[in-house]
C-alpha cells in the first residue's frame, strides 16, 4: 500500500555483497559484545545547510540524522556506536573514500557515511555502509523525500544497516500506538497517543474525555481499533489515523472489548460480553457480517490471529483459571496450550508465526514470556510486580509491554511505563514517553 503522505522514493540500487562480508552480527543470543561501528555525520554543502536551517530550524541536519541512526543501533543492543570525537576523517571525504586505517585505528568494524542535500525543495539523502576490515562498501542507498520527513530517513538508514549486518529486517521505521495516562490512580485520564518508535513525534488522538484502552494497528498502520467508553458504553471502535474519523464496530447490545485486526486487515476479532459471559466474535469490515467464534459459558477473550490467519490464540478460564488456548479461525479444534504453574493471559502470535508471547502471573509476580505454538519451550523473559500486554516488533525480535509500580502504604508512587526487551531476555529498556503510558502496540514497517 502506498502511503501518499510519505513520498519516499528509493533512487539508487541496493548492492548485495552478502557473501563477501566479514562482519556478522549474531542476533539469536544475548549480545555481550555489541559490534563497534562509526556513524559519521552526513555531509552537506554550506548553502544547503543554511537553507535547511531556515526550513527546519536545525543547525546541522546531517549530524542529527546520524544521531538517529546511532541511537537506534545502540538501543538494539547489537551495536556499539563509537564517539564521534574520536573520528579522524571529515564526513564529506569519508563518504567519498574512507581511509580505512583511520577507522580501524579507533576499532570501528563498520562505518556509515552519507550526504544530505536539497534538490528542488526535496531532501535527498544518500548513505554508504563500509566494511572497515575488508576495506569495501557493502551497501549504498539514496532517498528523496519532503524535508519534514527527515527523522524517517534516519530510521530507514538504521533499518537498512541492521538488515545488511544481521540478515533480518529492522524495526526502526515504525510507530507505537499506546494509551497516555495522567492523574490519580483512582481517576486516571487516558488518551490514545502515537509516536515514532524512538519516542519522537508524539501525537494525541483523543482528548481524554472518555476512557480509552487497548489500541491496535491494522496491517497498513492507517487504522486503529480500540476500546472506548464514549457515552459510558464500552464498545470497540475503529479510528482512521489520518482523517480522525471514528466509528463503532458492529451493533452489539453490550460491551465489546479486546479488539485486534485479522492479518489481512479485513476483520476485527474481539470479545462481546453478555449476561456475564464473554465470547469471541469477528466482524467483517466490508460486509459487516458478524460471526460468533467461541461458544462457552467461561470467559473467552484476548484473541490474536496467527500471521497466516488460520489460527487464533486466546485467553479462557474454562479450566477454572486463565489459560492460553488455540483454535482454528472458525472456532473448531480448541486446544489448551499453557500448562505451567500460574495464570496465563494476553497471548500474542509472533509475526514469524513460531512463538506466542504472553503474560503470566505466578506467586504474586508478573512475567512476560514466550512459548511455542504447541505450548512447549516456555521461556520467561522478565519478572516484575506488575507488567502485561506484550506486542511484537515487526521482525519478531523485540517485545514492548507496560509495567506498573507498586504504591506505598499511602497509595502513592504509582506509575505506568512502556518497556522493551529482546526475545533473548536481554536488553531490557525503558521506552521514554511524554506521560505515563500503557497498552503499547507496535506498527509494521512503514516503508517497504
Amino acid at each position, binding site marked *: 500500500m502506498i502511503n501518499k503522505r510519505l513520498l519516499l522514493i528509493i533512487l539508487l540500487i541496493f548492492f548485495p555483497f552478502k557473501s563477501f562480508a566479514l562482519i556478522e552480527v549474531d542476533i539469536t543470543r544475548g549480545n555481550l559484545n555489541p559490534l563497534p561501528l562509526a556513524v559519521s555525520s552526513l555531509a552537506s554543502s554550506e548553502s544547503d545547510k543554511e537553507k535547511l536551517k531556515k526550513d527546519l530550524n536545525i543547525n546541522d541536519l546531517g549530524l542529527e540524522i546520524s544521531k538517529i541512526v546511532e541511537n537506534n543501533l545502540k538501543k538494539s543492543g547489537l551495536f556499539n556506536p563509537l564517539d564521534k570525537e574520536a573520528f579522524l576523517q571529515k564526513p564529506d571525504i569519508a563518504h567519498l573514500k574512507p581511509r580505512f586505517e583511520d577507522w580501524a585505528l579507533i576499532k570501528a568494524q563498520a562505518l556509515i557515511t552519507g550526504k544530505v542535500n536539497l534538490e528542488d525543495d526535496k531532501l535527498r539523502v544518500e548513505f554508504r555502509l563500509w566494511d572497515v576490515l575488508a576495506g569495501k562498501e557493502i551497501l549504498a542507498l539514496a532517498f528523496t523525500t519532503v524535508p519534514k520527513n527527515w527523522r524517517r530517513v534516519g530510521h530507514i538508514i538504521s533499518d537498512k544497516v541492521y538488515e545488511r549486518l544481521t540478515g533480518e529486517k529492522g524495526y526502526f521505521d515504525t510507530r507505537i500506538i499506546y494509551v497516555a495516562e495522567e492523574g*490519580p*490512580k*483512582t*481517576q*486516571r485520564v487516558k488518551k490514545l497517543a502515537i509516536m515514532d518508535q524512538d519516542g519522537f513525534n508524539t501525537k494525541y488522538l483523543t482528548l481524554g474525555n472518555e*476512557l480509552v*484502552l*487497548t489500541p491496535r494497528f491494522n496491517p497498513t498502520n492507517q487504522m486503529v481499533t480500540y*476500546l472506548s467508553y464514549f457515552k*459510558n458504553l*464500552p464498545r470497540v471502535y475503529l479510528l482512521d489515523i489520518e482523517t480522525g474519523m471514528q466509528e463503532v464496530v458492529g451493533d452489539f447490545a*453490550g*460491551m465489546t*472489548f*479486546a479488539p485486534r485486526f485479522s492479518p489481512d486487515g479485513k476483520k476485527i476479532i474481539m*470479545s462481546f*460480553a453478555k*449476561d*456475564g*459471559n*464473554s465470547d469471541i466474535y469477528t466482524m467483517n469490515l466490508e460486509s459487516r457480517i458478524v460471526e460468533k467464534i467461541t461458544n462457552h459459558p467461561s*470467559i473467552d*477473550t*484476548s484473541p490474536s490471529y496467527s500471521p497466516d490467519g488460520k489460527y487464533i490464540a486466546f*485467553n479462557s*478460564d474454562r479450566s477454572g*483459571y*486463565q489459560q492460553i488456548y488455540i483454535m482454528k479461525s472458525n472456532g473448531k479444534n480448541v486446544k489448551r496450550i499453557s500448562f505451567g504453574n500460574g*495464570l496465563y*493471559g*494476553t497471548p500474542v502470535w509472533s509475526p514469524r508465526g513460531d512463538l506466542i508471547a504472553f*503474560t503470566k*502471573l505466578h506467586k*504474586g509476580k508478573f512475567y512476560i514470556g514466550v512459548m511455542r505454538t504447541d505450548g512447549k519451550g516456555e521461556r520467561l523473559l522478565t519478572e516484575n*510486580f*506488575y507488567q*502485561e*500486554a506484550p506486542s511484537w516488533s515487526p521482525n519478531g525480535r523485540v517485545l514492548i509491554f507496560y509495567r*506498573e509500580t*507498586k*504504591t506505598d*502504604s*499511602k*497509595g*502513592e508512587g*504509582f506509575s505506568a511505563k512502556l518497556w522493551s526487551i529482546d526475545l533473548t531476555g536481554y536488553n531490557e529498556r525503558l521506552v521514554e514517553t511524554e506521560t505515563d503510558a*500503557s*497498552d503499547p502496540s507496535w506498527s509494521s514497517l512503514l516503508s517497504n
Partner: protein
Amino acid sequence: MNLGKIYKNIFLVIFLGFVLSACATQTTQKIDSQIQGDVYTGTDTVEYLADGVPDRVFFATNESVLTTASRETLRKQASWLRKNSEITVVLEGHADERGTREYNLALGERRANAAKDYLMTYGISSSRISIISYGKERPVDSGSNPLAWSKNRRSVTVKAN
C-alpha cells in the same frame, strides 16, 4: 532443684508468650476483621442508597460468587428497589489491579451480572438494571496491598435516574 523456682519460670514464659501473641494478633485482627477468606467485609468505602441499604458487594480474587453477606446486601437493595419502583440502577463491576486488563473487563462484567441475577430473583425487572464493567480502571483504593485489592473487587449499585 527448687521446684518453686521452675514453676515460677514456666509461669513467666507462659505469661510473656501471652503478651507477645496479643501484640501479634492485634494487627492481624485489624485486617482480619475487614477481610474474610479474601473478601472485604469492612465498611470503609461503602456508601448507602438509603438508610441501611449498602451500595456495594465484594468478591474473592478471580471470583464472581456472591457471599452470604453480599446476598444480604442485595436483598436489602431489592427491597428498597421494590419500594421505589421509579428508580433504575446501573451495576458497576470492578476488578483489582492484579490481573490482565482484558480479562478483568470480562470479570467485572461477570461480577455485575451475578449481582443483577440476584436482584432479579428478588423480583426486580431486568429493564430497571443496566450493567457496566470497568475492569481494573476505577479502583476505589489506590493501595497495592491485599486489603486495598479486596475493596476494589466489587459491584456497586448506582442510581441511574
